[in-house]
């Protein structure tokens, strides 16, 4: 007889392309929870998100409207899904969808008793890439010099303020290193065409990229944090393998940020560590990273902790994790029957 509590958790981010979503690793961590017997309701935007077809991990999947459709459309769809599945907790995993989910969090709780554990809209907004310089001043951390640009005509003057190479970033995703103004223009058009404006120009820093997956309780406490160094990086800058490291300065920086921001929910810090051992924050992602399963592998099940916090439980902060544990990502071809693809394509659920 299982002593685990049965819960229904809805999870987004089921894609697993070369810039994979965190949904599948979040689900893997939840399925391995020692406290919960989790039924997973996948929430997908596209019919080819691999998580839809991973029936050992995802029990049922529903398509949901794209974030651009707005929160009313999302709410209506979630009401339908909830009527079928009785969702206890919802875990959104995409930056672009978070705004709608944060705005709906109170209504979801009040009308349907669906719990979530998301950053506040203020926390979400202040760590936006365009706001990073102000964020750095407020929370007393170092960030690389950056500015927003809205037009290709802004590019020639960048050389007066920055030293090439520069990093050209989209407001939600994508970043490319440009060595010339011409390359900046190319990436400006490519990234703005996909994610819109503004484009963020950031001073490139030479150093080692280290990341932290962490979870805050919303009261200033860091419930868990695992730092990782990327070992193999794809041409999109994504970690295809990484290793947990023992970096006390990085952990102290994470705790300081948690305390200062009173961060609520999962987050990923992307940091450059220079040769002089200076740490520059280059990005805060307001959700778990795609490598969050490494935290579970190191002894800190962050998605499980998030579920407990969402249910209003107190979670004792972790004080340790396994150091020198690696993840090596791989791709895997699922064989899918056409009738399954047909079902999700036509009915919007599988």
């Amino acid at each position, binding site marked *: 007889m299982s002593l685990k509590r049965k819960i229904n958790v809805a999870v987004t981010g089921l894609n697993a392309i070369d810039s994979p979503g965190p949904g599948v690793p979040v689900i893997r961590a939840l399925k391995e929870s020692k406290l919960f017997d989790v039924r997973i309701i996948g929430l997908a935007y596209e019919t080819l998100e691999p998580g839809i077809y991973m029936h050992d991990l995802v029990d049922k999947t529903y398509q949901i409207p794209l974030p651009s459709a707005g929160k009313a459309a999302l709410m209506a769809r979630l009401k339908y899904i909830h009527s079928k599945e009785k969702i206890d907790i919802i875990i959104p995993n995409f930056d672009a969808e978070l705004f709608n989910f944060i705005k709906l969090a109170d209504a979801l709780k009040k009308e349907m008793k669906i719990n979530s554990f998301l950053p506040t809209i203020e926390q979400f907004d202040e760590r936006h890439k365009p706001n990073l310089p102000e964020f750095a001043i407020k929370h007393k951390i170092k960030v690389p010099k950056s500015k927003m640009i809205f037009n290709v005509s802004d590019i020639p003057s960048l050389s007066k303020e920055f030293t090439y190479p520069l990093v050209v970033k989209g407001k939600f995703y994508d970043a490319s290193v440009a060595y010339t103004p011409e390359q900046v223009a190319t990436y400006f058009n490519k990234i703005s065409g996909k994610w819109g404006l503004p484009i963020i120009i950031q001073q490139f820093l030479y150093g080692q990229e280290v990341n932290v997956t962490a979870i805050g309780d919303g009261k200033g406490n860091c419930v868990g944090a695992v730092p990782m*160094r990327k070992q193999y990086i794809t041409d999109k800058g994504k970690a295809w393998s*990484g290793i*947990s*490291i*023992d*970096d006390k300065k990085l952990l102290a920086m994470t705790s300081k940020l948690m305390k200062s921001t009173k961060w609520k929910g999962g987050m990923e810090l992307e940091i450059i560590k220079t040769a002089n051992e200076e740490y520059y924050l280059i990005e805060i992602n307001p959700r778990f990273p795609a490598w969050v399963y490494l935290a579970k592998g190191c002894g800190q099940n962050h998605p499980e902790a998030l579920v407990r916090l969402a249910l209003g439980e107190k979670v004792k902060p972790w004080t340790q994790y396994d150091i*020198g544990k690696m993840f090596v990502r791989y791709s895997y071809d699922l064989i899918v029957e056409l009738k399954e693809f047909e079902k999700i394509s036509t009915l919007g659920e599988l």
Partner: protein
Amino acid sequence: MKLKRNIAHSDSGFVFDPNTGDSFSTNPIGIEIIKMLKDGKDINEIRAAMLKIYMVDESAFEKDYYDFITMLSKLKLTEDEPKEKN
């Protein structure tokens, strides 16, 4: 010269710096020296031990030793800079 306290190594020659996540491999003599450094042995003790085991003259050992120590320092496996050779 002190090796970082948390440097991990195995008899197979694998060396791991948990602070950076960097890993390296060295030969059996390198591992012997790393073990002695971790035990807090100084150059005189290491020299004496190596000259006892291996057929090597003192000047050849010292040259190779300082090359090795410089490499450990460059790889940031040490806590401070190697001392100047007197």
